[in-house]
């Protein structure tokens, strides 16, 4: 049961954090079932890939085009996350493509998917590739002194603006930011590490069966999780996805064109974003409740509305497990269980294992493979095609969620 909030002892009514009535009606959306994922290309993950991100970007796009049966020269749209790898002008040059009629870079999670879907649905491009080469394991580490230099040289690239209120107090790094939310979540709902530890345990089981998941040859136990090093109390080492080198590309086109290509089309039934008042990346500490992921909640409402389905129709969910404590909060925000019930839902692991009530991250997730957000889309595609290394039965409708703790985005894919 939830503990009594201290909120009533203070005057929250005067606070800017009180939620407002926005007044605007829900956006119209006509993207339902219009686009499909037709190709996936994954460059094998490693701790040091020994190639440039330009090299692996080209490589994963070639793999995706081959997988789809699409000629590289027919790609006329490119989207990517702003932080990952070379921009479309380099990649276009490398691939020898004459022209791109659409290109864009997006910010958080897997939000570039929306750009691809909109570009295809509107006809701005015929074949759009979404690529993510990211060499985070071997890439230069952003050290603490870099943070200081960034501050002094007004380099915004390290997300420091608005973090002034934290860093002078030694609150640095995303693990610490998320730890604050996790601490409050444990306090409000009596959540225990013995419950959420089952998420990395189950993911490591799936990872052990997935050759591209390089971190776990054999599964960890709940005891291993509990014994893992405390990095920022209450966050343990096994609460955070490791860094990895890898590259992924997917190709999106219209559902109509998809029917003539190599694989059974994976139809994008729905694609949605979500934001919410008083948001700040991993540090939305001023809003009424800091443990609710309202961006994810808003995203989910739109996602299910467009697809015309409900959480009980979803056969598996690929969730953002960059930070494990966000997983139970996502289960709640996405409507798979009630508020404060996410940790109990994961306890023991049976509900979230392949074959369970709601299998999650059947490829091992970011925890088992390293963080590359697009793995979630790839695994959803493989489940629908029937080619996952942890294949579930009747995988005809899969949900993907990204951007936990910040602006959220999601997909519902179907066969």
């Amino acid at each position, binding site marked *: 049961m939830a503990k009594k909030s201290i909120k009533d002892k203070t005057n929250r009514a005067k606070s800017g954090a009180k939620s407002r009535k926005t007044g605007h009606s829900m956006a119209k959306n006509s993207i339902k079932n219009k686009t499909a994922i037709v190709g996936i290309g994954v460059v094998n993950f490693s701790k040091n890939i020994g190639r440039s991100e330009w090299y692996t970007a080209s490589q994963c796009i070639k793999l995706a085009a081959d997988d789809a049966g699409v000629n590289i020269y027919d790609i006329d749209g490119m989207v990517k996350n702003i932080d990952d790898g070379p921009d479309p002008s380099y990649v276009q040059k490398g691939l020898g493509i004459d022209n791109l009629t659409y290109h864009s870079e997006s910010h958080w999670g897997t939000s570039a998917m929306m750009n691809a879907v909109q570009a295809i649905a509107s006809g701005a491009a015929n074949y759009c590739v979404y690529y993510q080469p990211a060499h985070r394991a071997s890439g230069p580490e952003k050290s603490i002194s870099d943070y200081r230099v960034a501050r002094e040289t007004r380099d915004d690239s390290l997300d420091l603006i608005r973090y*002034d209120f934290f860093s*002078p107090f030694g609150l640095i790094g995303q693990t610490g930011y998320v730890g604050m939310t996790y601490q409050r979540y444990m*306090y409000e709902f009596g959540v225990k590490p013995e419950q959420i530890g089952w998420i990395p345990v189950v993911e490591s089981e799936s990872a052990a069966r997935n050759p591209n998941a390089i971190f776990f040859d054999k599964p960890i136990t709940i005891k291993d999780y509990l014994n893992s090093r405390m990095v920022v109390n209450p966050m343990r080492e096994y609460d955070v996805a490791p860094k990895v080198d890898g590259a992924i590309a997917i190709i999106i086109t219209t559902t109509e064109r998809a029917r003539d290509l190599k694989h059974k089309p994976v139809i994008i039934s729905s694609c949605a974003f979500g934001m919410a008042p008083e948001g700040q990346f991993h540090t939305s500490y001023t809003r009424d409740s800091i443990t609710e992921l309202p961006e994810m909640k808003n995203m989910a409402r739109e996602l299910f509305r467009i697809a015309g389905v409900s959480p009980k129709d979803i056969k598996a969910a690929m969730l953002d497990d960059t930070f494990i404590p966000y997983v139970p909060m996502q289960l709640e925000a996405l409507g798979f269980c009630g508020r404060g019930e996410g940790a109990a839902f994961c306890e023991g692991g049976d509900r979230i294992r392949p074959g369970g009530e709601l299998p999650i991250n059947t490829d091992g997730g970011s925890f088992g493979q390293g963080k590359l957000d697009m793995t979630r889309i790839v695994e959803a595609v493989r489940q629908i095609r029937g080619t996952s290394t942890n294949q579930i039965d009747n995988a005809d409708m899969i949900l993907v969620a990204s951007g936990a703790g910040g602006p959220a985005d999601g997909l519902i894919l179907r066969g």
Partner: protein
Amino acid sequence: MVEYADKRIPIMRPYIDVDNQEYWDAVKQHKLVIQHCKKCDKYFQPPRPMCPYCHSQDTLEWKESSGKGYIYAYIMFTADKMAYPAFKLPYAVVLVELEEGVRITANTHEMKPEEIEPGVPVEIMFEDLHDGQTLYRFKKRGA
């Protein structure tokens, strides 16, 4: 209680811009001020360029906070690699809900790790540091 391990390592300074200048100027004067809309009687933290309720840019003011509140959440830095090296380990960062309703983060003053819990009443204090900047901390108070 926060202690600095190595005084040669600079403590990170806030990035001061036109939106938050007055907040940090007040801290220098040992005052905590919170941005407030006169018209809507709402407080905001972090500071912003417009009241999100009435969309006025002329009704914003800085009101001095009582500096009193309750611990809402906390984290404890215990491991070398994740912590900022200027600080002696372990050190806590608390998220405090102020009487005005907004929440701010800071270190603690003379509080043992076992005394740091959500709901514990605290109040602000200021410290002029060896490097010339002024920061605030929270210490225990009677309920």
